[in-house]
């Protein structure tokens, strides 16, 4: 029998990094910036948090002296700073210097992963540990602490209350983003910038500022996805390349959700579920079948792409000027 009660929490935990990445990227893409550097940004977000928390844990005299507030806020601040810097770099290259967005993005993914692996490797060396990973279990305990009553409420607690605070933050952020995009003046103007920067400019909107802010905030949100992955999902264990292809999956999720963060809340859980489905379906010893199951999220994305282009509804298309640099006096 398929064990839903243990499947759903696993799917959600798998989905949260994707949700954060997807929300951040949606915000970025709504401003017309196609940030293919997302995997790199999430990776940098993760390693920045690890560095912060590693230095904090090292500075303690004994593991008992850990301060809960600092243990959470230091990695959080480091993660936000790291991903903000990535966002600024991307904006400087594509908005100010008007470099090609695809090339910049891909370069930043390569850079981000390399950056992460370099510092990850350095930290592993510092600890002199036997295994190629760093365990930050003290910090991780604070990140993955579940809500009260999680254990006492049976299946309800297991499905809804057993996650670390970042998971709930992710869902709240997604709903806030959806509301801002759909209902507020700022959201309207951001959508206008991504659809038609000329028009937005003529309407008196500062296009470059919107692009910068949306991209940087988007990168910070996405960076949290990396942090969640290390601190909560992976129980504070950093090993190089463990993050895998989650960044690309988040990019696919943006398309899957047709640029709607509120849809992403559910879609990310679906993606997370598909991603780990192979663990719950008896596949025998055949590893190839497992790999086929891992393809499912991408297959679903392709199907959604096909359907949404066939229906050809204008609201479901990508922002019209996605991937294009804007220069006012271009003729």
């Amino acid at each position, binding site marked *: 029998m398929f064990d839903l009660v243990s499947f759903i929490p696993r799917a959600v935990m798998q989905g949260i990094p994707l949700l954060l990445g997807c929300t951040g990227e949606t915000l970025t893409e709504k401003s017309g910036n196609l940030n293919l550097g997302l995997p790199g940004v999430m990776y940098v977000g993760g390693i920045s948090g690890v560095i912060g928390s590693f230095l904090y844990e090292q500075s303690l005299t004994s593991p008992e002296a850990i301060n809960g507030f600092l243990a959470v806020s230091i990695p959080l601040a480091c993660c936000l700073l790291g991903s903000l810097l990535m966002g600024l770099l991307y904006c400087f290259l594509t908005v100010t210097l008007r470099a090609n967005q695809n090339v910049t993005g891909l370069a930043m993914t390569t850079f981000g992963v390399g950056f992460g692996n370099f510092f990850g490797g350095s930290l592993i060396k510092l600890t002199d540990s036997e295994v190629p990973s760093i365990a930050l279990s003290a910090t991780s305990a604070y990140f993955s602490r579940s809500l009260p009553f999680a254990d006492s409420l049976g299946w309800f607690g297991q499905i809804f209350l057993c996650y670390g605070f970042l998971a709930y933050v992710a869902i709240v952020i997604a709903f806030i983003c959806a509301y801002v995009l759909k209902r*507020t003046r700022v959201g309207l103007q951001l959508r206008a910038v991504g*659809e038609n920067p000329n028009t*937005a*400019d*003529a309407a008196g909107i500062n296009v470059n500022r919107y692009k910068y802010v949306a991209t940087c905030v988007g990168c910070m949100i996405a960076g949290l996805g990396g942090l969640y992955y290390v601190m909560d999902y992976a129980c504070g264990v950093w090993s190089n390349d463990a993050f895998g292809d989650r960044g690309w999956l988040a990019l696919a999720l943006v398309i899957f959700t047709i640029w709607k963060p509120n849809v992403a809340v559910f879609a990310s859980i679906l993606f997370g579920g598909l991603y780990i489905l192979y663990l719950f379906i008896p596949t025998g010893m055949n590893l190839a079948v497992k790999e086929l199951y891992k393809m499912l999220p991408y297959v679903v994305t392709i199907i959604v792409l096909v359907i949404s282009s066939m229906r050809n509804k204008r609201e479901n298309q990508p922002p*019209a000027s996605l991937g294009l640099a804007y220069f006012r*006096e271009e003729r």
Partner: protein
Amino acid sequence: MDNKTPAVRMRNITKTFGPVVANDKVWLDIYRGEILALLGENGSGKTTLMNMLSGIYFPDEGEISIDGKEVVIRSPKDAFDLGIGMIHQHFKLVDVLSAAENVVLGLHEPGRLDLEKVAERIRGICDAYGFEVDPHQKIYDMSVSQKQTVEIIKVLYRGADILILDEPTAVLTPQETDKLFAVLRNMRNDGKAIVIITHKLHEVEELSDRVAILRHGQFIGDMPTKKTNAQEMTNMMVGHAVSLNIDRPEPVDPKPRIEVKNLTVRSIDGVLKLDDVSFTANSGEILGIAGISGCGQKELLEAIAGLQPTESGSICYIEDNGEKEELIGKDPLAIADMGVSLSFVPEDRLGMGLVGNMDLADNMMLRSFRRGKGFFTDRKSPRKLAQDVVHDLEVATPSISTPVRRLSGGNVQKVLVGREIASAPTVLLTAYAVRGLDINSSYTIYDLINRQKKAGVAVIYVGEDLDVLLELADRILVLCGGKVSGIVEGRGAKKRDVGMMMTRLGGNKADE
């Protein structure tokens, strides 16, 4: 009138783009309660000048004062704050947003975004000036004239009392134009200052109170419209005397060339676009096609060129020796090889005919690239052709390796027509050949078409300006809702009759 303070006073305005001087020490006064027509050829700097007023560009030199106070306009927002609103030639609207959302874009009203309240105010503006628009309709669902209405409302919503309209009638039907003019007169009587940029002189005479003329970026002069006439305005614009008469030589030895019989075409969504259309186009003759836009003109031309699937009927190409050949079922390449050449100028000129990012020579190659021997393309003859076109048609371009999108509209059109003519077609199909072109370029195009006619080519000319059609075409086929409303002789045809036929089948004189 002279002692009134102008709403806008521009003095010594200079703007350069690299080596190009777009505006050179321009003076301009705009008064309230007056419609000013700003005239000039393509590339004479009208739009640049107005863009500086609306904050898109920043002048290199010069002063602008509003109501006697000197101001600096650094961005579109500054312009709005001063009450200046511009309706651009290419609409500045976001397609996926509704009319109301487009209207509030960029505004910093206090409080939450309440689209219902916005819609209410839009309806108020509509009532005051006689617009019809649904505030919640998405822009991509709107017709061109509806989009323009949204643009005007957008400007009025911001409380602008200095309105600039850049070629507002270029894409409107005569009826829509009349409606727009009525609205503009309403606004003028309301005390607003209005500037209209246009190429159509009869509109200037009909609508404006004063005209100002630019030539090559320089201010030539301004005067009350009543004290001038089309000839004088044209001469000032061009800088030398221009004949405003269009030549219409007698057809030489006309023979049937294209015979269309009972042609019926449906669009993809099943709408009947052409219904039982029959006519013959003769060699050495210009067949004009008149009709309100969207009455099947585009489908008719594309059907002949093999680009449009047809439902029933036949299109025959008749050779000089009387041999008939069916065109339906042939692909465009085969049809083009027979000598049917389509020069189609849709709303977006670079859409179907030329590739904007490629240079002149490469665009010439689009027709001939299949011909080269072997694996490599022949680049020499297209270069030669490009040089010939530039020389013969006086295309103003820095060189033949300039991307065509950098050229002005008139020059782009010359390149396109030049290429089409170069393949020595026996049938030339043109649609909206002079859309958006200034007078001088338009006349060059008419002249080119006439030269083709004299060479024995059957020309089918779809036009929107009835005055031109009546002067240029030998016969005029009037379409109304996809049906042939009638075919009249060009010589002696009355504008009124043709106009009636455009709106009603056969032009029944029901109102008399």
